[in-house]
C-alpha cells in the first residue's frame, strides 16, 4: 500500500477521471529525462522530454514495499544514442527511476509518484531499440546475500590451498568444524 499519495491525487483518483503520464530518469553524466507524454513535462527541477519512438514500459506495481526484482525498459535507439553513451560511460551504477505524473480532470498538475528505482545492470542495443535492465537496491542486497559457501569453499577463501588444518567458527551458530586437508 502506498502512503505517499497526496490528498489532491487521492481526490483525482476517486473522481474516476484523471490524466497520467510516465516519466523516466537515467542518471548518466548528463542525466536523461524522458516521458511518454507528447510534450515536455517539468517535474521539480527537471524537464522530461517526449520519447520519439516506441517504448515498452515494464509492468510496475504502485507499492512502497519491497521494490524488488529487475525490470527492463525498451527505448527507441534508431539514432544509436545509447550505444555512444554506453561506450563513453559504461552501464553499471547508472541509476534508473520510473514514475508517473498525474493531473486532475481540470488539467491541474498534481505531482508524481516514483514507481520504481534501481541501478542499471545490463543494456542490449539493436538497430532500433535499447533494452535497459536495472535491479532495485533490494535485489542488489539479495544478490550479495545469495552467495552460498560450503565448508570447503569457505576454507579455500581463507587459505592458500588444501592441506591446511584450521579451525573455523561458523557464525552465527558458532559451530566448530575442521577443514580436511
Amino acid at each position, binding site marked *: 500500500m502506498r502512503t505517499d499519495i497526496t490528498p489532491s491525487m487521492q481526490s483525482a483518483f476517486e473522481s*474516476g477521471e484523471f*490524466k*497520467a*503520464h510516465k516519466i523516466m530518469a537515467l542518471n548518466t553524466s548528463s542525466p536523461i529525462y524522458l516521458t511518454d*507524454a*507528447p*510534450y515536455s513535462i517539468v517535474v521539480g527541477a527537471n524537464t522530461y522530454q517526449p520519447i*520519439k519512438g516506441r517504448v515498452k514500459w515494464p509492468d510496475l506495481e504502485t507499492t512502497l514495499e519491497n521494490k524488488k526484482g529487475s525490470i527492463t525498459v525498451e527505448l527507441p535507439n534508431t539514432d544509436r544514442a545509447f550505444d555512444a553513451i554506453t561506450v563513453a560511460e559504461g552501464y553499471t551504477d547508472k541509476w534508473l527511476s520510473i514514475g508517473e505524473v498525474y493531473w486532475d480532470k481540470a*488539467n491541474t498538475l498534481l505531482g508524481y509518484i516514483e514507481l520504481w528505482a534501481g541501478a542499471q545492470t545490463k543494456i542490449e542495443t539493436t538497430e532500433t531499440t535499447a533494452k535497459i535492465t536495472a535491479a532495485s537496491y533490494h535485489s542488489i542486497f539479495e544478490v550479495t546475500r545469495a552467495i552460498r559457501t560450503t565448508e570447503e569453499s569457505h576454507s579455500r577463501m581463507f587459505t592458500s590451498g588444501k592441506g591446511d588444518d584450521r579451525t573455523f567458527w561458523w557464525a552465527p551458530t558458532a559451530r566448530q568444524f575442521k577443514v580436511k586437508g
Partner: protein
Amino acid sequence: MALYPQDPLFRSVSVGLKFTTDISPSDNGHQQAVDRDGASAEIDIKYNKLSYAEAMRVRAFLVSLRGRAKTCDLILPVESHTMGDIAGSTIQATSLTAGGSNTLVFKNGQPNKTLRYAGEWIQLAGHDKSYMLVSDLVTDASGNGIATFEPALYSQVLANEQIIIDEIKFKVNASSDITKTDLQPGKQYSFSVKFTEAIR
C-alpha cells in the same frame, strides 16, 4: 515537402483523431478512466475507379515516399478548409504558451468574426501537428480571441507565431510499406490508401 496529388479526386475521405485511454468499466455503468495526452490523425482515402494514367501517377508518388520512410503534405477536400469567414485574418499567438496547453490566445483577426468552427482543424506555422477546434474560433471587437482545441499542444508556441486557419496541410506518412493497386478489367484500377500523421 512533397504534396500528395490533388488529382485524381478522392471518392471519400475518412479522418479522425486517435486518443489513448485506459478505461475500467463495470457492468453497472460505473467506470474509471485514465487519459493519456496526445492523439494522432488517421486518414483513409478511397478513389473511384482510376484510369491507367491516374493510377500510375498516384502509385509513383507513393513509391517515391519509400513506404513509410518519407512524409508528405496532404490537403484534404473540405477538411482542410473552413466554412468560417477567414478573409483578411492572419492570426498570431499573443504570448508564449507551453506545450500541454489546450488553449491559445491569439490576435490580429478581423473583428467580430467566426474564423473557423468547432470540429475544424488548425495548425501552427512550422509545427507538424494538426489540432481540432472544440469551440468556434471567434474574434472580439479588437480582433483577439482564444482557440480551444484537442489534443494539447505538442510543443511550446512562441509569441507572434502564426496560427494557420486556411488550407491545413496534414503532415503524414503512409500506413503501409507496400503500395498495391488492383487492376480490374478494362485497365481500370481500384485503389485506397491510409495515412498516419507524422510528427518528426
